[in-house]
């Protein structure tokens, strides 16, 4: 019954929400810039094969280490590969990798946090202590250890990040479940004899998802950043792959050929900044304390 009412409300509210979102964007130039950048990067990544002037792996040894020119806007690297093409293709790795980390870590963290908060008692106690231990473990060092133990590769870098990433979601979702659990409609469901498991997955969790998704959006930029960092350290995809962090690492050896690392760095920077602009604006808008103060 509750779900029917929610769907109805959502549907009735939709046009209003689009208008609301538009008003929000107009009032927040930072959010607008962020959103535009995100859309541009998603499109660039999708259509990289059409946009790139050369193949990302195409080598022309005579053309190696050439500065930016009309033929090669971003110059060429030590193997004569076009830096622009590799930067454009890089998004096809970094964006899905960041997304995969957030989605997988979010799913694991949500499940653990939801069960922990809903069950309470000793189960909650044990699960939260385990979560705390994972949080106390220095993130990058744990990720480095896992990635090198599994062997450097794209999938392993993502796996390593998921291992260090889920605890914060577990904490957030647990907190949300604790507050949602106290609502009358949960009591009502229980009084109607709905089984506990069903109450958790059908009644409590759907009401926690929206804030959790917001947290995930804010987190995306950070995930892209850490992924690039692991890759920079040589713990990501193999060297030939057009990946931003890896390209910067290659560029270190060719310090005077600044274009080799400058452009992939700008790519990471703009992607992460875009997500942070959007995320930060959402956070500002949702934080009632701040909102009251500013108005």
């Amino acid at each position, binding site marked *: 019954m509750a779900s029917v009412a929610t769907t109805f409300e959502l549907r009735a509210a939709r046009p209003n929400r689009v208008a609301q979102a538009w008003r929000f964007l107009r009032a927040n130039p*930072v959010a607008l810039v962020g959103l535009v950048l995100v859309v541009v990067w998603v499109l660039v990544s999708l259509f990289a094969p059409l946009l790139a002037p050369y193949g990302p792996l195409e080598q022309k040894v005579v053309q190696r280490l050439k500065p930016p020119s009309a033929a090669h806007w971003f110059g060429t690297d030590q193997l004569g590969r076009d830096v622009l093409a590799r930067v454009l293709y890089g998004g096809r790795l970094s964006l899905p990798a960041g997304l995969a980390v957030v989605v997988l870590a979010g799913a694991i963290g949500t499940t653990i946090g939801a069960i922990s908060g809903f069950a309470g008692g000793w189960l909650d106690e044990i699960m939260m*202590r*385990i979560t*705390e*231990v*994972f949080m*106390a*473990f*220095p*993130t*990058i*060092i*744990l990720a*480095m*250890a*896992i*990635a*090198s*133990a*599994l*062997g450097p590769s794209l999938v392993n870098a993502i796996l390593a990040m998921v291992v260090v990433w889920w605890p914060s979601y577990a904490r957030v979702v647990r907190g949300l479940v604790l507050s949602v659990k106290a609502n009358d409609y949960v009591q009502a469901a229980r009084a109607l004899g709905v089984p506990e498991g069903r109450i958790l997955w059908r009644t409590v969790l759907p009401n926690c998802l929206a804030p959790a998704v917001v947290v995930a959006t804010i987190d995306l*930029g950070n995930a892209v*950043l850490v992924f*690039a*960092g692991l890759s*920079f*350290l*040589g713990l990501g995809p193999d060297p030939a792959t057009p990946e931003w*962090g890896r390209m*910067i*690492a290659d*560029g*270190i050896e060719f*310090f*005077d050929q*600044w274009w080799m*690392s*400058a452009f*992939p*760095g700008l790519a*990471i*920077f703009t992607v*992460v*900044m875009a997500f*942070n*602009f959007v995320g*930060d604006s959402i956070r500002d808008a949702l934080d009632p*304390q*701040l909102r009251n*103060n*500013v108005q």
Partner: protein
Amino acid sequence: MNTLTYILRRLVLTVPLLIGITLIAFAIARAVPGDPVTANLGQKAMSDPKIVAAFRAEWGLDKPAYEQYVIYVTKLLQGDLGRSIKSRRPVLDDLRAYLPATIELATASIVFGVISGVLFGVLSAVRRNSWLDQVVRFFSLIGVSVPVFWLALVLLFIFYARLRWAAGPGRLDAGLKPPTRLTGFFTLDALMTGNWTVFVNALRHLVLPAIVLGSYTTGLIARVTRSSMLEVLGQGYVRTAQAKGLRERTVVLRHALRNALIPVVTVIGFSYGGLLAGAVLTESIFAWPGIGQYAFRASTSLDFPAIMGVSLLIAFIFVVTNLIVDVLYFVLDPRLRSA
């Protein structure tokens, strides 16, 4: 008395946390396909079963996992972190050798982060919604978005390679001899031994990595200071101070900022631990011989005693700094003292 029992209780509570960390590290060491034998022995040595067996016996890798774990924890309780497979020295000695460089760097970063972050945060809150506020907000978001390893390269390129204002990688120029070791911090040691040349050189080497590592903290602190200041500026006592006709500077610095700093202190506390761990990337670019580099080499060679040692150390420092912050609350906030 109350504060003391509180501190002791908090310290006791860290023990299960540290044990948990050893458990995780052990679980990873066991669950993954990577083998310290292949990571540390050459191709030729690998083909000789005798050498492999001797290597396994030497590092206790031939014993069952639980036994290895019991041995490790027993030694740990006696203050022995084991021996590093890579350096073949006691992990504790290694940490003692590498830690001061990282502490010096992290401390310089946090000083930079706090000074610039608080300054930007206050300016932005006082001139709320002005162009200055927008600029500060923009730059603080940049601070948390820029990849440190790239920022490091950009700054090195501009200020070292081109302008020659800052020194390059490492803690000192190649020709210089490190100062006599008193604290392990080159700047401090040089100052204490009156070695002016080394002091200036060490400082020139410290500036860029400290800015790079501190960029994230600057952004973070600027944002926290801004929102905290905005909250305090709306309080009654600030309005009273303004109504009394006090100068704006006095109101902002003496009345508002002092109260707004409390949440900032929390951020400083947890940032510091993060800086120690986060130094991996910065240290690798600036060839800074700290625990970040040590941890990186330890992970790539699957040197688990070393990985465990670094992780325990950082987690412990993290817990202690947070504890110091909580105790600082009592000092900073008289309301808590009377409660």
